[in-house]
Each structure stands twice: as C-alpha cells, then as structure tokens.
C-alpha cells in the first residue's frame, strides 16, 4: 500500500525526506478542503521538486464544477498536462469528460466522497480506463474488504485526517451574520470555527470558504488499528493533513511509515487519544430506529 500525504509549499521539503510514496497538491481554484491550492506556475515548480526527490505527485481538483467553471477547468487541465505528475484526484464528472478529451484519463482518480460505496461503483469506471477510485468516507472496514474480490481498478482511501461530512454551496456564515448582525462574517472567512450541536453538546469543525460551507467529524480519523486490513485491499492510503500543525503532520507520517514497514510505533493509543476511526467500525444504517 502506497502512502500519499496532502502537502503544501511549507511542508513539502520535510515530506520529501520521508519514506512516503507521494504527495498530494491542490490545484487552484479547483481544489477545496486542502492544505494549499496553487496556480500552475507554482504547482509546476512544486511537482518538479517532488519528482526530483523521487516522489509521485497527485494533483487535487475536487471542487464541484459549475457551467461557468468549464472553460477555465479545461485551460487548467491543459496547463497541468505539461507538468510532471502521476494522478489527478477529482470529484466532478466534468473533469473526467474534459480530461478524456485531453488524453489524461489514465491519470484520473475518482474521489466523490460518497458515491463509491459499492463494488459496482468501481466496476462502472473500469471501462473508462481511469487510474483509481477513492472509496467513500462512510464505509466500514468490513465494507471496504468487500471491494477486494471484485475491484477492477486500483483503490484508494483517505485513512487519516478530518473527515468532511457536510458541504453546502451556500455561505451559511455570511447569510446568518447578515440576518442577525451578530458578527462580521468576513473576519472568519477560511477560519476554522467550532459548531456546537445544542442537544448533544458535540462540537464539529466548521469552515466557510469560496466553495461554500464545510462541516467535519468531531475527531479526526486514524487508521493505525485497521492498517493491516486496509493494506489487503487498498493500493493507496491517503493522509489528509488539513487542520494539523506542521510538527503533528510529520509525526503522523512517521507513524504510518513505521506501520507500512510492518513495525508498530510506540504508544499509539496514548498519542492518538484525540482521534477515532471514523466510520471504520461504526456502521450507519438505512432507517430511523435501526441505529440501535
């Protein structure tokens, strides 16, 4: 299982020194929920630097695309074509159609976050000759293992990091502030806030940015205890570094590198008490009343 880490310019050099397989870089303005998104000029330099270090590079273009975005998207994909890279992670089917016209389909990694819940979803994309599919965030470990037998494409999973659970195109912070006058929303653009659900008194990370409004699970996901089982199924293990401080990212990466060598890092349980496993052992259910 290959390790890929979401990077930005400030983290890049230190990550390139580590025994990871590749890095993930956001492509502005078509990446969201990333550590950094870069213009073509900057991106070309960062990816070339990574390739010189012997690392693979995946570009992230996971935005929802609107009609106005399409010409610009095509230009950006065309610009990417001349760069050194190994994959394009996308969420909107427009990317697939346009990339195919540009001869880039073999680089595509489909990452819609919720639409790859069944092995048949992967089979659907096999004839398209795309590179890989990222499995849905809400799958359990058992469900992920069910993909192993039939998968016709390489599989990836975001095994570590804050799991996004809500994305609205509406700028909910701005509209609320304008309605109530309680605060100046501009002061909190792109800032991580905390959303407290009153009944259960549980807090969720909350961000408004140019792509809308995003809410995340309370605790970030860690997959140390599931790593071996995931390795039986997955080709790529992604570490999402959004919201983490630099030092913590490097520690997390070191721990997965250790695991990937078949060794066990020290005191994982204590050091990751502020994480959980996301949905890996937390099945969700179809109907009211089924959740137990």
């Amino acid at each position, binding site marked *: 299982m290959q390790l890929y880490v979401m990077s930005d310019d400030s983290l890049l050099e230190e990550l390139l020194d580590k025994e990871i397989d590749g890095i993930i870089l956001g492509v502005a303005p078509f990446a969201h929920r990333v550590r950094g998104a870069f213009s073509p000029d900057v991106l070309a330099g960062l990816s070339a630097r990574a390739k010189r270090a012997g690392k693979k590079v995946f570009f992230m273009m996971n935005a929802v695309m609107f009609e106005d975005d399409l010409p610009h998207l095509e230009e950006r994909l065309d610009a990417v074509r001349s760069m050194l890279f190994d994959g394009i992670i996308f969420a909107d089917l427009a990317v697939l159609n346009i990339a195919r016209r540009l001869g880039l389909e073999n680089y595509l990694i489909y990452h819609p976050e919720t639409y790859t819940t069944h092995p048949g*979803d992967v089979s659907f994309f096999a004839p398209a000759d795309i590179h890989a599919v990222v499995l849905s965030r809400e799958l359990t470990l058992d469900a992920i293992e069910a993909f192993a037998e039939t998968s016709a494409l390489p599989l990836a999973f975001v095994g570590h990091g804050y799991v996004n659970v809500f994305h609205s195109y509406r700028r909910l912070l701005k509209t609320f502030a304008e309605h109530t006058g309680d605060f100046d929303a501009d002061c909190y653009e792109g800032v991580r806030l905390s959303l407290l659900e009153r009944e259960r008194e549980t807090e969720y990370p909350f961000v408004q940015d140019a792509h809308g409004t995003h809410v995340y*699970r309370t605790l970030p996901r860690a997959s140390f205890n599931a790593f071996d089982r995931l390795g039986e199924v997955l080709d790529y293990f992604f570490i999402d570094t959004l919201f983490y401080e630099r030092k913590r990212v490097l520690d997390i990466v070191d721990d997965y590198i250790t695991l990937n060598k078949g060794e066990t890092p020290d005191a994982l349980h204590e050091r990751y008490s502020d994480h959980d496993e996301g949905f890996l052992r937390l099945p969700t259910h179809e109907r009211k009343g089924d959740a137990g």
Partner: protein
Amino acid sequence: MKRPELLAPAGNLEKLKMAFAYGADAAYIGGKSFSLRARASNFTLEDIEQAVSYAHERGRRIYVTVNVLPHPEDLKHFEAYIEQLEALGVDALICASFAVAQKIRHLTALPFHISTQQSLTNSEAVRFWEAHGAKRVILARELDLESIRRIKAKTRMSLEIFIHGGMCVAFSGRCTLSNTMTGRDANRGGCAHSCRWEYDLYSDGVRLNRSQPFLMGSKDLAALPHLPTLIEAGVDSVKIEGRMKSLHYIATIVNTYRRLIDDVCRGETVDIEAYRSMLSKAMNREVGPGFLGGDPLGKQQLYNIDRQRPTQDFAALVLEYDEDSGLALIEQRNHFTAGDILERFSPEGEPATFKPLAMWDEEGRSVQTARHPQQRITLKSPVALKPYDILRKAG
C-alpha cells in the same frame, strides 16, 4: 411553447390518485426497498402494479425511485426487483448510484433517470450520463436559471428541475451529517435532517451567534415566479418534492403549478401573486426561490422557524356525490362544524364557498360537528361537488 411534464410525489396510492386528479402528468413513487424516503409509506409490488394500471389508463407515467447509494450488502434481491418493475410496466427508474445504474442498464430495457442526489451542476456531467445511457438527468438544486438554460442549450438530454418543496442545504447525495450525528445514513433513506437542528458557533471559545441559535436549514423551494423562464428554457420536466406530504398539500401544490404551466403555455398573462395565494393554503413552511433566484441570501434561510404553523384548513375530502339529492359522502381531515364556511377546491374551475345545509354520521344521526379524524359524514351541500374535491375551512 413546449409544455413540460409536471411530476408529482406520491407516498401511497391515495396520494397518487390525488396527484393525477389535480393535474400531474407523472408521479414518482418509492418501493419498499432501495428508495430514499424510508419513512414514507411506500409501495408494495402489488401497489406499483395498481399504480401503473391507474396511470396508464389515464395516459400518465410512473417513475420508481431506486435512489439509495448502496453499501456492499444492500443490493441483495435488487436484480429480481428491477426485473419485476420492468414486468409491471413502470415508465422509468430514478437512481443515484453508478452500481444501480449499471444494473438497470444491463439487466433491463427500462429507461433510467439520474437523481438529484448526484448533484449534477454542469453540461459535461450531463453529457457523461448521456453517454452512459441515462434518459434524463434531474439537475442539482444549486443551479440558477441561466445555468439551466445554458445546460439545456448544450445537451440533448431530457432535463428535470425541482420547482417546489424541501431542499437539502448541502449538495444532495454528498452529505453524511446525519450519519455522523445519529448513525442514520442519509444516502440510504435514514436522513435525520441534522442540518435543521439548533447550533452555536464558536471562534476560540467565544460564541459568535449572540441573538439566536445558529441555523443552517433552508426555506422550502417555490419556483412560481421563475416557472415561465424555465418553460421558455425548454426544461422537459418540473418536479414537486414531498412523498411524505399530505393529500391536501399534494392537491394544492400540483394544481397550482398545473394551472400556471397551462396558462404560460397558452401565452396568457399570469399573475404570480394569485398563484402564490393558492399555494399558501397548503403550506406550513416558509418558501423562497432557492438558487433559481440567484445566489441565495439570508432571506432564503430558515431563520424564523417559529413562524412555521401546521395547516388546519383541510376540513374534508369528498368521496362520493349525488347530484340529484345534493348529498356528499365526505371523509373528515380536520375538525369543523356545520356552521363553518367551507371552500370547495376542485382540480378544475374556481373555488366556491358554502355552508353545509346539514350533516349526518354513519349511523344517520344528525351532527353539528365533524370531530373525529377520517370520520365519514354525509353532508348536504348547496354547491355541486365531485369525488376528489377538497373542502377547506374558509374562515
């Protein structure tokens, strides 16, 4: 001007008949499995057979939702199910999952529509589904009128647009807020509507929302003022949300849009306020144009939830009527008395108000009050009635 299909929700056979009586061209229904409205009453295969017969006898269409995003264990018996639906003669299936679409395409000759759960927002995504055999795409509710017009101009695909009803505030099909907060999977029919709960918002421990709870839910969609533009843009189907809504709601909303579509297509000048007034008789949530009116501002959000009120105006449904005697058999839906002024609401014609001349219960005893839910009452009416007419309290 091309007349778009008016597509209505139906949570059961009674609602389906009501939707057709009040002007729907087609209805979408859910079976007992594989459909996203787990709490709607939904249709057995026998019900679906009846629904198809009922619709086809009247030249209408039935679409069946199979719009879950299934997990590996969820598609047991699915192949047999869609083959049964095909044998029953349903007109199309509505799906959101790639796996489901592939099975429909490979195992049946049934047309399939791509659900709004796919959140399709551009012409390239529509073309993708066109190339993969879909007959229709139900566009995302995040699109404005100009985007819809441009997508329609760029593709040959049949396009369906939501025009009325509840809206996800998140991109549909991409939300797992309910999964996170309640363990109920929104994409498998279990949505707990967590986005409509009350929250507080903090920055570094300081509460930002000082005056009221932080709310994220949106007002319901009501596309009335934009419907003429949608028709002009050539959309193929306009859809009303609400498989779990009441008979009164379905009749009122369907009929209002029926009349508006017909008036627009006849080239008549339309008074949107008059249609808005018709709609308001069955609605208990605040409405707005959503993204159809451009970028939704604060006024599109549901910040005043206290203003919602249950509608008590639906007094009774007419089951039978005898012209000679002026006697109608009605079924009570809300408390009313013989002294109340009632309004007859029919699929066609203008409303008429009247006071019942007399009322009797099922034992033939004279009564002054219809107090029991679904109580059957014989009512002497001074105005002509028909089965499926709705009697509203007009006071």
